């Protein structure tokens, strides 16, 4: 029979996984509501980074803030225009706790429906789009709380509702922004139909490889 200490460790593991899942799901809600500062506050204080699609890597807490608040949000306090819509489901999360359980990795699907301008981030006609991609994120426990250490959303397709991914795999991705530039180039941007698969962070549950 398991000892009290062993049981305690097993519960801690379950609790850690649950908290990380909550963190990622809440990230999705804040993103969809354009709550950019709240998103930034989900990130670790020490050495976080974010990379989405072809926008490049934003490093450090200040880089994360520049990405969400300045680039995606259009600046502090800017209210999304009428019709702007983001519904990005955070799906199929697989959390892998590292040895020592102070860091973890998670793979998720991001799948959603949007109404956003595609010619630029904030100007131009709104387009209805389907979006799909994979997250490979790292989490860290800082001051007893799980936070996002690195977030990487690798875009598979972002297609107009009227067209579909076979016809138009990607709209609205114009590379790293020149006014609010990233700290590093995109590391793995290779959307459909390239066949690229972002490497998985988890081990095979049967073979262990």
């Amino acid at each position, binding site marked *: 029979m398991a000892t009290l200490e062993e049981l305690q460790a097993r*519960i801690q593991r379950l609790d850690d996984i649950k908290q990380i899942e909550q963190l990622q799901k*809440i990230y999705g809600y804040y993103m969809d*509501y354009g709550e950019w500062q709240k998103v930034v506050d989900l990130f670790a204080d020490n050495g976080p980074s974010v990379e989405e699609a072809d926008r490049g890597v934003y490093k450090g807490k200040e880089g994360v803030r520049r990405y969400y608040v300045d680039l995606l949000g259009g600046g502090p306090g800017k*209210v999304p225009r*009428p019709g702007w819509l983001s519904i990005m489901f955070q799906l199929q999360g697989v959390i892998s706790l590292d040895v020592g359980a102070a860091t973890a990795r998670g793979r998720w699907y991001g799948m959603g429906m949007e109404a956003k301008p595609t010619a630029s981030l904030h100007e131009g006609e709104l387009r209805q789009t389907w979006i799909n991609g994979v997250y490979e994120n790292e989490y860290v426990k800082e001051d007893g*709380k799980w*936070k996002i250490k690195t977030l990487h959303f690798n875009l598979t397709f972002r297609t107009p509702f009227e067209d579909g991914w076979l016809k138009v795999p990607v709209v609205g991705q114009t590379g790293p922004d020149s006014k609010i530039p990233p700290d590093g180039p995109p590391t793995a941007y290779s959307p459909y139909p390239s066949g690229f698969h972002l490497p998985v962070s988890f081990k095979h549950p049967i073979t262990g490889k």
Partner: protein
Amino acid sequence: MTLELLEAEVTRLEDIREIEDLERKYGYYFDTRRVRDVLDLFSENTESVEIESHGQYFGKDGVRRMYMVGVGGEAETGLKDVVARREKSSGAAFDVITQLQGVVTIGADQPIVGFLSMPNPDNPPTAFHPYPSGYHFPYSFPHPVSGEVEVPVSRYVHPMAT
């Protein structure tokens, strides 16, 4: 950690698991119109149920009226009555049902599938502001890092607000 604290922690984790299952099962039952099973998921002390623009229904009886009568199409006064009413008229509601489902099944323990008009609610809708209003449904959780409970930022302004 004592055994008592350990048990409390296990119970908490199991509770969350069961609540997540409950919500997922609600989805499956609702999607297959198993309205009796939906009703049985609700507490005998249900406070209220509210879907879309149909308004608020109070108590367990409100749940019954919402799902059994409204969604399931069971008559307030019994199945025979609603069948008779439908036979008397060419009924737009009946046409909707046949278009949606293809087949209409009526049985003692199987409510009519499809939508009928909803029974009168106990209260008007409290937060029906669909796209593109920009309305954001309030969060039920605090920020996981800052711990603050905040109303979502929204550009939606209630028409009655000054």
